[in-house]
């Protein structure tokens, strides 16, 4: 499979990703994940702001999607741990994210992810995480 097909398969095979409505675009091996706004992604309607869990999950799924593009495995990789930093309220607009694979080892990957909305330079949330890479078939 090409990286684009690998990515499409990943996005299609996880029901929770279809629920979130997450999409992704590929430029070479660099992926931008896209989370269109939907009213039921709001956590606090008074601000209104996207739920922190939605931003956290989107960042984590961006890391897993980027790993799926680079690591040609049909299995879903497993999250070991994540640290999510909330920088600004997630406004009710489209959110974007890009993952930086800091280290991809034989069994474990270290990934940093940043999410933004209108301005790339003003991120709304960031994630650092470790992921267990499943065996190649």
């Amino acid at each position, binding site marked *: 499979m090409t990286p684009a097909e690998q990515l499409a398969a990943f996005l299609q095979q*996880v029901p929770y990703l279809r629920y979130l409505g997450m999409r992704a675009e590929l430029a070479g091996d660099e992926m931008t994940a896209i989370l269109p706004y939907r009213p039921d992604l709001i*956590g606090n*309607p008074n601000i209104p702001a996207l739920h*922190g*869990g939605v931003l956290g999950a989107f960042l984590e799924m961006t890391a897993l999607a980027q790993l799926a593009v680079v690591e040609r495995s049909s299995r879903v990789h497993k999250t070991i741990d994540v640290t999510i*930093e909330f920088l600004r309220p997630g406004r009710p607009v489209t959110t974007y994210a890009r993952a930086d694979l800091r280290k991809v080892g034989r069994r474990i990957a270290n990934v940093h992810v940043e999410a933004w909305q209108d301005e790339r330079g003003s991120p709304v949330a960031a994630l650092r995480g470790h992921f267990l890479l499943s065996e190649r078939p």
Partner: protein
Amino acid sequence: MSQSDPDRLVARLMGSPHCVALGFSLVAVEPGAVHLAAPWREDLVGDPDTQVIAGGVITSLLDHACGMAVTSLSPERGGGPTLDLRIDYMRPAAPRTGVTAAARCYKVTRSIAFLRAVAWDVDEADPVATAQGAFVLPDPTT
């Protein structure tokens, strides 16, 4: 905590569109501690091979349980935004099984609440995930 405070917390939970969308329910509450449950649902599966609930749902559950635990300290003052949240995933949840989270404030300063939370499927002593986080408290002078 007055009699009406749990009702107020339930009303606030039901006022959060994402919590309603994921079907969260409040199991128990005392000042600074909350039990919150997420049901298993087919469209919220993270691994289609095993039918296990998605980590993203557990992330939302842990974050919201922590936020509610902060709010339960003083429903008048309310809670504030999550500063950071660290989650360790111990093991996958059991297939086709919901998850419950317990969050507790273990230190509250004038401006920050520090929390720990644990999520389990069947047995609280055998968690699927644990979390630690810091939450900003609203400025009491404003």
